[in-house]
């Protein structure tokens, strides 16, 4: 995991190396200061040598300033290294996500991907900064201080041999017991957040069913669960401070006692005693730092793991080795195709699909929710790969195409339309970066979008808000159709993408398709029989299988599902819908008006 993450250091290696070097400099100077202080006291103040005091004093001031600059710049560089590292991580994750198939995405869920790219990366960024700075500083400070203490008075410094392991072990034990509790706390927070979030979203349901009291109980149980564990965890962790004070104080008492005797015995000088106190502080303090580092690093370990998971996820749909780069025509073939979303959802979504569609045909697909209509067409641009069997476009299995080439030629207007923040023109240009204004307008005209765009204040330069909230559902659908048309694809798939467009306009769009794009294979998924009844062939889907294929008239005579659908819509809608229009596409006698 570590190696995987560290690959993201890249151009910030310089800062990442410079930081520990500067930290080392800082610590070296810092630990040397008390040592020189001892000599000021013992060689300057005690014998009354002002000259010496001045000389050493100025030297020490210079050293303190040097240590200050080294420390400050190490902080600066470490921040830049860590922020850069985080930036590269985010870049890598995002570029990997873009390569993900939807199986990959389902594996993570999109909200968890967002958390990984924000909170988790921030944690790792802080951990990285800590690693190159504090995690270098703390052990160095410990080692240097002990070394200096030994060089001043080895006999007395032996006390560290006793104190340091005791403190280290105690701190370890504290972390060891507190850490699992903290992990548990986070889990229990999830439950609390779940209750709040379900109550916020479902406030109307809660109020209508008068469930306030029960929900309150649920919440208080979750709240109490947190309290119990969190208090315990914090109590354990809070032992740190008194333990630390205890150790420092005990050491100082011992040093005072021994030091006084040594000074009197002539084995030591007063200044040296003072510096011993300083080193005691540093030694024990650095241990405290170390235990903090361990706690924090182990907390960010989970974040690192979660990031590494995304980075190491292998996109399941990728370009083949020697990809086919051109799609010759809009033929489509399904050869015994079956599909299951994942091992978890065992129900097959598609079963043994066999299908041949000639180039240029207008195909309708109808069937109930969950019958596999959308899944069927999503196999064409390889949004998913068939679990078994073969899908061919233009006579070539889809897996052999370069993804970009395949998707450029198989345009798809999806069920839930997404527009991106930007102008209408920018959104339409998604279909073709190089499209001229004329081409854009032509596409918009076919999609029956030109008219309403012209009425907008800024026309084609009107800004679309995030999520397209400033255009109506029907307008959004027409824009997404125009966007797909700009690609000039060999195959156009419309997945229930005119549901919010009124029937008259919908008919005009279909008309324009027939006249303006006769070569293009058109596959229309709809829930309205009126939308597909004039198709060359209609595919009726049920339970992941093709129930029947045929024209409207054929299906009306032979297919039970189709008849039932027609019956329900005819009774409630079709009659009324078509009564006032001049050309009835589904006259009850089943006349094939348009061919």
């Amino acid at each position, binding site marked *: 995991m570590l190696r995987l993450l560290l690959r993201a250091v890249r151009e910030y290696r310089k800062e990442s190396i410079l930081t520990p070097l500067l930290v080392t400099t800082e610590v070296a100077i810092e630990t040397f200061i008390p040592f020189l202080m001892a000599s000021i006291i013992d060689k300057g103040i005690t014998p009354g040598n002002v000259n010496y005091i001045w000389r050493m004093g100025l030297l020490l001031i210079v050293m303190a300033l040097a240590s200050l600059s080294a420390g400050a710049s190490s902080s600066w560089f470490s921040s830049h290294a860590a922020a850069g590292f985080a930036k590269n991580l985010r870049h890598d994750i995002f570029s990997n996500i873009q390569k993900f198939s939807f199986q990959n995405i389902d594996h993570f869920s999109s909200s968890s991907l967002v958390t990984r790219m924000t909170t988790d990366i921030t944690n790792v960024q*802080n951990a990285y900064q800590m690693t190159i700075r504090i995690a270098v500083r703390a052990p160095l400070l410990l080692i240097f201080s002990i070394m200096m203490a030994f060089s001043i008075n080895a006999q007395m410094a032996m006390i560290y041999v006793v104190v340091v392991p005791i403190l280290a072990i105690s701190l370890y034990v504290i972390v060891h017991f507190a850490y699992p509790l903290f992990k548990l706390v986070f889990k229990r927070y999830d439950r609390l957040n779940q209750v709040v979030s379900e109550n916020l979203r479902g406030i109307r349901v809660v109020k209508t069913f008068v469930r306030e009291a029960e929900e309150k109980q649920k919440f208080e149980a979750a709240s109490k669960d947190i309290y119990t564990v969190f208090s315990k965890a914090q109590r354990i962790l809070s032992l740190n401070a008194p333990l630390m004070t205890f150790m420092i104080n005990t050491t100082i008492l011992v040093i005072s006692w021994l030091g006084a005797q040594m000074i009197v015995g002539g084995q030591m000088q007063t200044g040296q005693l*003072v510096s011993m106190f300083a080193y005691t502080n540093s030694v024990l303090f650095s241990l405290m730092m170390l235990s903090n580092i361990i706690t924090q690093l182990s907390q960010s370990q989970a974040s690192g793991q979660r990031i590494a998971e995304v980075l190491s996820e292998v996109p399941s749909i990728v370009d083949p080795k020697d990809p086919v780069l051109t799609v010759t025509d809009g033929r489509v073939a399904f050869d015994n195709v079956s599909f299951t979303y994942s091992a978890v959802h065992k129900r097959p979504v598609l079963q043994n699909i066999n299908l041949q569609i000639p180039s240029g045909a207008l195909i309708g697909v109808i069937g109930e929710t969950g019958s596999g209509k959308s899944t069927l067409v999503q196999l064409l641009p390889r949004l998913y790969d068939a679990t078994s069997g073969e899908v061919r476009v233009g006579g070539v299995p889809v897996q052999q195409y370069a993804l970009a080439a395949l998707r450029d030629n198989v345009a798809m207007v999806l069920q839930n339309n997404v527009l991106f923040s930007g102008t209408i023109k920018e959104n339409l240009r998604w279909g073709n970066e190089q499209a001229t204004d004329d081409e854009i307008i032509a596409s918009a005209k076919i999609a029956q979008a030109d008219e309403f765009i012209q009425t907008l204040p800024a026309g084609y330069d009107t800004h679309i808000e995030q999520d397209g909230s400033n255009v109506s559902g029907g307008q959004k659908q027409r824009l997404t159709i125009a966007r797909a048309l700009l690609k000039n694809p060999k195959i156009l798939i419309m997945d229930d993408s005119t549901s919010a467009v009124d029937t008259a306009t919908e008919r005009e769009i279909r008309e324009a398709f027939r006249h303006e794009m006769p070569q293009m294979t058109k596959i229309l998924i709809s829930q309205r029989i009126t939308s597909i009844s004039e198709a060359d062939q209609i595919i009726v889907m049920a339970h992941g299988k093709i129930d029947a294929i045929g024209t409207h008239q054929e299906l009306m005579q032979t297919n039970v599902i189709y008849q039932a659908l027609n019956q329900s819509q005819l009774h409630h809608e079709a009659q009324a819908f078509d009564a006032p229009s001049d050309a009835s596409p589904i006259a009850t006698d089943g006349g094939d008006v348009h061919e």
Partner: protein
Amino acid sequence: MNNRPRSFGKKSKGPKDTWATLKRLLKLIFTGHPIPLIVAFISIIVAAISGVAGSLFLQRLVDDYILPLLKLRSHNFSALFGAILVMGGIYYLGVIATLIFTQIMPVLGQRIQRQIRDDLFSHMQTLPVNYFDRNSFGDIMSRYTNDVDTLMQLISQSLPQFISSLFNIVFVVVGMLSLSPLLTLVSLVIFGLSIGVVRFLSNRSSKYFQAQQKSLGALNGFIEESLNGLKVIKVFSHEPQTQQRFDAYNEGLREDAARANGFATMLFPIMGNIGNLLYVLVALVGGILAVNQISGLTLGAIAAFLQLSRNFSQPISQISQQLNAIIIALAGAERIFQLQDEPEETDQGQVVLVRAIKGADGILAAAPEGQIWAWKYPDPKQPLIELRGRVVFDHVNFSYDGQKQVLHDINLVVAPGQKVALVGSTGAGKTTITNMLTRFYEIDSGTITYDGINIQDIRKASLRQSLGMVLQETNLFTDTVANNIRFGNLTATDAQVHAAADLANATTFIDHLPQGFETQITNGGSSLSQGERQLLSIARAAVADPPVMILDEATSSIDTKTERLVQAGMDNLMRDRTTFAIAHRLSTIFNADLILVIEQGQIIERGNHESLMAKKGAYYELYTGKKALE
């Protein structure tokens, strides 16, 4: 020297009225737990005194014991031993004091956190629906997470550390003054310098942290947009362009984060080394003073002063750090108080629903075992009224803000068991009309009666109990399928739950789930299709068995056949019930007894399907698709 730049990171907005919030918060903390707080406070002071006394001891050690002993021939250490024992006493008193307050405060923080959280939730449940419409989900949610969290940090960490640092500085200064006023002056100059440095650095870093939050928000928005639109990105092979835009946001965030953290973390080495500088200056100045015998500075005093000066810089950086944390926490506290101050949903209703039995004479009498529901006035002389579901709107007007009228003069009489379909474009006011009946919002003028009783006189809980609702958003809860259905009626037996599922046409799909009725629903039922979720919410309403139903139909994405399943479930639900259906698909309204066409808050047409078609008005246009329904 703890590297905690994050505490600066949240400094986005300061509280609006710092002092009022602080006062209220302290009152809240103090009144609930006065004794542990006083104990903790005393312990903090004792610990601080013990620390300073320890440093001052050094002076006595050197001046009173070591130096005199040096001059003596016979080395008698018993006096020294006594002094060390005394010192040990003071030291360990400090340790115990530290132990006490570090154990009290975090637990106190937890307890207060829990109390605030529970208060918050139970208060939230009493708020009117319009509060939830006015405030975004994330905004309310963050009060439970970020705000409560920072508040707990404040109580368990920032506050004790702040107080402890404050006393430390005071006692250190007092200790210093007792040793040497002149050296104290030198220290105070350095002290001033450090405060300047701290302020400069924290201003700088907080400026960039704000920028960082903004960049992070922008990046976040972009990631979400891209993930939502990933299919579109893939279908259009737009990956490189998207990556490019992402990189631009990403680089912006990096710059801000690097600067913000840079300034923030710089504080620690700078403060630490200013401490070193002070240390050196004390030695230098003190040494010269001592050697020249100015102001009677002893060697022991210098040693003690050196030790004290080491304890000087740390509390200063602590204070600045904790001050930031306190300001953030106060902003959070203010937001929590804001929610707690939101006025509760008012309820003057006195009429309640009770179970009753009908006597042979047709007169109702309250009886807990009764099978019928009846309205009961507080006045025992008033007869019980049987719950039937007759709803009348009489000249009802409504506005959200008292200015822009949303409903105009709505008049409506619905007999028990009648089906009403509300038709009209988005924002016409269909949902608003049903919100009047549930009293999610209060009408401005006019009256609404239910079984002849003004709904203002009915206790809200009873009113809502008599209404069922199936909404577009199904809002399932994390629990089993059976318990989700039981949400409608907690006392429902398994048999009743199954019957409700049957009525809703939901049994077939439930039986296909891995554990049937015991299958756990997670994530609001994300593993179910929308139609399936809808069936569950119908079953949930069915098990409650209210006489009046409000149905808000799904706008799309249920195809005709599943819709017929849902429709059949709804039909079963509507049978013998007064029903208000917000119809999005025209097939639904075909069977309605009364169709209301709503436009701009007014009923512009009313009648049944045949009469409205014959009229060739607005309904006719909607129905024939001349105007699209959205």
